[in-house]
């Protein structure tokens, strides 16, 4: 068990090198969710004047979307880095290690969970500076858990894609998967204001539950009835994509 933990920590540390040792390289990824939040609220801010809009202002409503976007892009970036490792042969080295495949996956994906806090944190600082209300420590803690969970799920999905295509050119497929999952939800407006088709998709999209979970505190209070579905959804996503990713790793060389 201790050996597995050491392996996970070592791989996570390597995963953090992208931001620690190539600082300029991570700036677009850190800035992008904030740019989206600012841009969307500048363009669509008046949407908050619609009847049935549950928040005081549009920016507050979409802050959680930005946080999850950061998580999605971070997860996609993990897959792109893995694809680069595959192209360069480094992945072979990982496959030659006697460590269990799930342990290796946790190490690879784990760094995404930490890295996603950077764009989310930056976005929150900007949002609070622009007048978004403090949601409370509990809400932020829950948001952090859900954001990290989504980053893990997105990283597992991107890992599946990377293992299947074995090239960085599959990057758009990784990014669009995460983006689709996050945007086909109650991302811009509450459920009542969605069109029929988007509402139908949002109803079955588990990320809707995650988004609503993160939105607690920013809009409305944190409640157990709003929290447990979000936690369940994120656990399910991580389990499903994680299982696929482990299967993909085990099937390497077949």
């Amino acid at each position: 068990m201790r050996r597995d933990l050491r392996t996970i920590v070592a791989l996570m540390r390597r995963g953090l090198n992208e931001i620690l040792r190539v600082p300029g390289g991570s700036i677009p990824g850190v800035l992008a969710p904030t740019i989206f939040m600012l841009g969307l609220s500048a363009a669509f801010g008046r949407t908050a004047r619609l009847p049935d809009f549950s928040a005081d202002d549009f920016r507050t409503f979409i802050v959680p979307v930005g946080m999850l976007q950061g998580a999605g892009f971070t997860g996609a970036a993990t897959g792109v880095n893995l694809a680069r490792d595959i192209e360069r042969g480094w992945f072979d080295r990982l496959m030659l290690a006697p460590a269990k495949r799930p342990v290796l996956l946790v190490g690879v994906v784990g760094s995404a969970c930490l890295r996603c806090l950077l764009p989310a944190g930056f976005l929150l600082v900007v949002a609070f500076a622009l007048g978004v209300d403090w949601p409370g420590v509990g809400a932020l803690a829950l948001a952090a858990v859900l954001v990290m969970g989504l980053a893990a799920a997105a990283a597992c999905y991107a890992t599946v894609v990377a293992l299947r295509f074995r090239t960085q050119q599959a990057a758009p497929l990784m990014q669009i998967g995460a983006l689709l999952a996050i945007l086909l939800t109650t991302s811009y407006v509450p459920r009542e204001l969605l069109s029929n088709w988007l509402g139908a998709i949002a109803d079955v999209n588990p990320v809707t539950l995650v988004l609503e979970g993160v939105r607690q505190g920013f809009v409305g209070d944190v409640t157990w009835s709003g929290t447990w579905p979000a936690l369940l959804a994120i656990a399910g996503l991580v389990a499903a994509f994680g299982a696929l990713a482990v299967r993909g790793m085990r099937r390497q060389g077949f």
Partner: protein
Amino acid sequence: MCNIIASIEAIEAIGLEREFKGGVKAVTGIDLTVAPGEVYGFLGPNGAGKTTTVRMLVTLLRPTGGHARVAGFDVARQPAEVRRRIGVALQEAALDPLMTGSELIELQATLHGIPPRAVRKRGAELIERVGLSQAADRRVGTYSGGMRRRLDLAMALIHEPEVLFLDEPTTGLDPTSRLTLWNEVRRLRDEGTTVFLTTQYLEEADQLADRLGIIAAGKIVAGGTPAALKAEIGSPHLDLVLAAGSDVQRAREAIAGFGDHRPAAEGCHLSIGLEHGAADIAPILRALDDAGFAVAELELKQPTLDDVFLAKTGVHLEGAADAEPAPEPELV
């Protein structure tokens, strides 16, 4: 059931095969054994199936036929056990350019479950052994090709493997770096490590290998010690260039009893097999002298592994080594 009768060989392959998508058979039935503590050379041109064979033996590729055991464990059914006991330096020294040499060694050690207390000590020892002490704290992105290979080797040795796989370890290295690596392989053999070395360089195989397997088109065409393989082909021969204007046919008749004549270049060239090796040179020269022939040049040539390859496959290995490598087949 397979473990009840434990293999005493370090590496054993029986009928090993690998078929890729489209029916491409990169390896078509490899049988080989490598004894513990031996340096086994796997020699062949680009595209012969060397790397595919190695990747199957080190559990990176699943065989589509046959089976193999490394360090006593089946590569397909017990891959984790195999990985614990092998070290691998692949054709591309795949290293993370953002990390330092020390960090990479420590990461490798951690991946192999070496306890933290031992990681630093063992890492420092290996870095010194491969001559990278000065560069250990520099990022690998700044390393030369030779330095990367040495680091790759150190990483392959960090967990003291029983069997070490080196896939074309000196390709692209300058002569000095190549010699350094050769010395390291000899040292490893002396320490009792089994080394499976793939190479396309004749001299490397000749110098380092205790035994060789020569592979072409996915199967082993010859196997044995370098000396035995060369002896199988024949004895050494003597190439002579006579003085201009000599009657080559008469010269041939003058030395007919010393060995078989071989094809030679046009003009005043002769080539004759030496049944008794170098001891025949002086009598041949005396016979030519007695017959009134002057010798302008002479060269004693031992059979080479290229001669062995030529005899078994009909093509030279050295020319084949410069040819375009076979395209990477898609995994099935």
